[in-house]
């Protein structure tokens, strides 16, 4: 363990910048975006320096800590506000600050016509600070602060254009769904404290092997609930599609690359809990497998380019959650897929933003078509992201997703077959909807009005970040998997040596070929089906398409099962409160009032009456004393 004194700047700098921009208000309008971008870039520089410093150390000395102050000290319960930068955190720090900086640069141009650009950048910096706190906290309680902070930033940014009521509602929906997950996290922290008497990662890790299996399963399930809320996993996934109401750079940074992967971080960080409880792992793989298919199916039916990408994000995070549930061998692949996904999905979202920028903020893909001639750079960078996500070798997604499918098959037995086939099916669906998306957007004949829309390539401030992310989409997978570098790098954190030896069902090469075949079928089907695209979405479609268009009825389900009964319950409680509790209070008040009305008649203002009352009173007193003493 190495101690450091400058980890805190990673959080303090963007937090200070966010506060400054918000406090100064319009005074900072001219230079606010520049300050925010410089601050974000400087956190990236710190992150890179820390990475190389860490790389030059070896073994246990790689992890770095910094104690900030005694936060809570009650009896034997002590929590320090302390930061921990280890092999897992540094991956996230580099992803958050690196992609974050690129998106800051992109936003300078993308938001240049918005009068509230400074506020936007303040929120972005707030997000960077909160997300870094989330991944740097050395205990669940420190993590929780960052966890809530990113929830706040996400809420503020989804509702950034809150003058539109639908957008404000989308922000609220995201916040509420996240609250449900947050309840899970706080319960997990409480159970962990009750079990282990500490909430630090190290303390819980030390205690986990000796805890009862019921407690571990409960903590695991609650952590999974938290992850499901933050990472838009089944059954809390419905907010992610609506979260696309936020500006596109926000969708790229928060709702694709970083914040939504916090659930994967949480589970990977809590690997000691999940390693010790096979029940918890089972919950995790079920949620992951269901979500990866769920998201992929929704993705096939969406005409809104951002919502299709959001469904894809949901599905890809499903892959990561699935990988984390597969035991110690899966964590490294989950993180690897998380990082490659951070590159290609952020790049594609920025590409979608670039298309919207050129098309008067149109998002309906049925009104795109043939845009590759007008936005060549966007089309190329988007194309790299596309090849990466569907898993074509040698692009990034091939290395990471293939490993997950392989690990799923290797889980052994019926479980291995079911999970593996789900993952394969997901890969085919991914290929289908991504091909559909790219065909509808960039190929075919133009379906937009030449009078109203004049598609044009975005300025360099926008396409340079896209190009850098495209390079990442090409190269990162190979870098991370070359010689198992990612697996070795993360080994001290996730202990893959504890792996239970699962029987290898298929050789890796067979899995890869199978996956490629499925992907090929998906692409071919999309190419055939979308040779011509009607401008209006066809009405006469199968019931499955209709259900998929409505997010597989998740909103309808939530409304019927949770929201309506919830409203009824609330109305009942309000009625009970009004008639019983308030009724009692009002009865007391009424009785006192009525009595006073009667008694006040004595107070008639005549001094002689008062004198008489006094006299009678004195006589009564004297009589009483006399009778008592007699």
């Amino acid at each position: 363990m190495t101690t450091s004194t400058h980890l805190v700047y990673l959080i303090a700098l963007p937090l200070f910048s966010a506060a400054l921009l918000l406090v100064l208000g319009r005074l900072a309008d001219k230079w606010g975006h520049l300050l925010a971008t410089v601050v974000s870039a400087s956190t990236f520089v710190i992150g890179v320096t820390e990475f190389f410093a860490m790389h030059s150390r070896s073994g246990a000395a790689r992890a770095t800590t910094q104690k900030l102050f005694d936060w809570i000290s009650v009896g034997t319960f002590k929590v320090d506000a302390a930061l921990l930068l280890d092999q897992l955190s540094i991956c996230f720090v580099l992803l958050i600050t690196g992609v974050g900086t690129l998106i800051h640069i992109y936003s300078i141009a993308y938001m240049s016509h918005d009068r509230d650009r400074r506020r936007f950048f303040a929120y972005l910096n707030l997000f960077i600070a909160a997300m870094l706190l989330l991944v740097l906290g050395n205990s669940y309680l420190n993590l929780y602060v960052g966890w809530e902070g990113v929830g706040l930033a996400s809420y503020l940014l989804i509702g950034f254009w809150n003058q539109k009521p639908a957008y404000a509602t989308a922000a609220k929906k995201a916040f509420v769904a996240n609250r449900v997950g947050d309840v899970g996290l706080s319960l997990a922290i409480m159970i962990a404290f009750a079990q282990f008497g500490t909430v630090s990662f190290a303390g819980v890790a030390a205690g986990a092997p000796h805890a009862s299996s019921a407690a571990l399963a409960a903590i695991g399930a609650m952590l999974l609930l938290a992850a499901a809320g933050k990472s838009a996993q089944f059954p809390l996934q419905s907010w992610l599609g609506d979260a696309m109401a936020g500006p596109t750079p926000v969708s790229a940074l928060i709702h694709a690359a970083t914040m939504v992967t916090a659930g994967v971080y949480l589970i990977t960080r809590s690997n000691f809990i999940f390693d010790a409880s096979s029940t918890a792992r089972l919950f995790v793989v079920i949620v992951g497998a269901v979500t990866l298919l769920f998201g992929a199916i929704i993705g096939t039916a969406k005409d809104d380019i951002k919502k299709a990408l959001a469904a894809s994000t949901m599905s890809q995070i499903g892959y990561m959650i699935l990988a984390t549930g597969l035991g110690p061998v899966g964590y490294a692949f989950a993180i690897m897929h998380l990082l490659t996904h951070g590159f290609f999905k952020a790049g594609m979202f920025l590409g979608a933003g670039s298309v919207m920028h050129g098309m008067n903020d149109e998002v309906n893909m049925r009104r795109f078509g043939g845009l590759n001639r007008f936005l060549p750079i966007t089309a190329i960078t988007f194309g790299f992201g596309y090849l990466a996500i569907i898993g074509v070798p040698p692009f990034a997604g091939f290395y990471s997703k293939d490993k997950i499918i392989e690990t799923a098959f290797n889980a052994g037995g019926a479980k291995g077959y079911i999970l593996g086939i789900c993952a394969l099916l997901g890969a085919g669906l991914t290929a289908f909807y991504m091909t559909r998306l790219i065909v509808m957007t960039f190929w075919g004949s133009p379906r937009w009005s030449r009078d109203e829309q004049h598609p044009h390539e975005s300025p360099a401030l926008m396409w340079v970040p896209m190009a850098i992310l495209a390079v990442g989409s090409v190269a990162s997978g190979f870098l991370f998997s070359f010689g198992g570098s990612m697996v070795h790098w993360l080994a001290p954190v996730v202990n893959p040596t504890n792996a239970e030896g699962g029987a290898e069902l298929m050789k890796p090469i067979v899995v890869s070929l199978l996956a490629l075949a499925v992907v090929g079928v998906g692409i071919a089907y999309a190419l055939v089906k979308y040779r011509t695209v009607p401008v209006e979405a066809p009405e006469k479609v199968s019931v499955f398409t209709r259900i998929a268009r409505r997010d597989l009825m998740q909103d309808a389900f939530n409304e019927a099962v949770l929201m309506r009964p919830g409203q009824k319950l609330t109305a009942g409680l309000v009625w009970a409160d009004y008639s019983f509790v308030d009724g009692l209070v009002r009865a007391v008040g009424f009785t006192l009032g009525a009595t006073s009305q009667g008694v006040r008649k004595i107070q008639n203002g005549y001094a002689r009456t008062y004198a008489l009352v006094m006299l009678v009173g004195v006589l009564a007193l004297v009589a009483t004393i006399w009778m008592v003493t007699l």
Partner: protein
Amino acid sequence: MDISNYLYLSIILFTIGAVGVVIRRNAIVVFMCVELMLNAANLAFVTFSRINGNLDGQVASFFTMVVAACAVGVCLAIIVTIYRSRRSASVDDASLLKR
């Protein structure tokens, strides 16, 4: 003469004063009745002093006289002021307290 006759006189005087306070309307008369009650009390104090053979009661009666003298000064001033502003010394006319 039986010394308890002084106490009977004191009771009679006090009763006259108390009834007067309650039934009379003129502020001057009401005030005089109050003074009558004070002096009835003084008489009782002095009588008890005599019965007990010490000076405690007489000391108390001196205090009562001082208080009564002060009350005369203050009360007459109030009554005169009320009379000046309302052209009436009836206590029933000064019934603003109920508002």
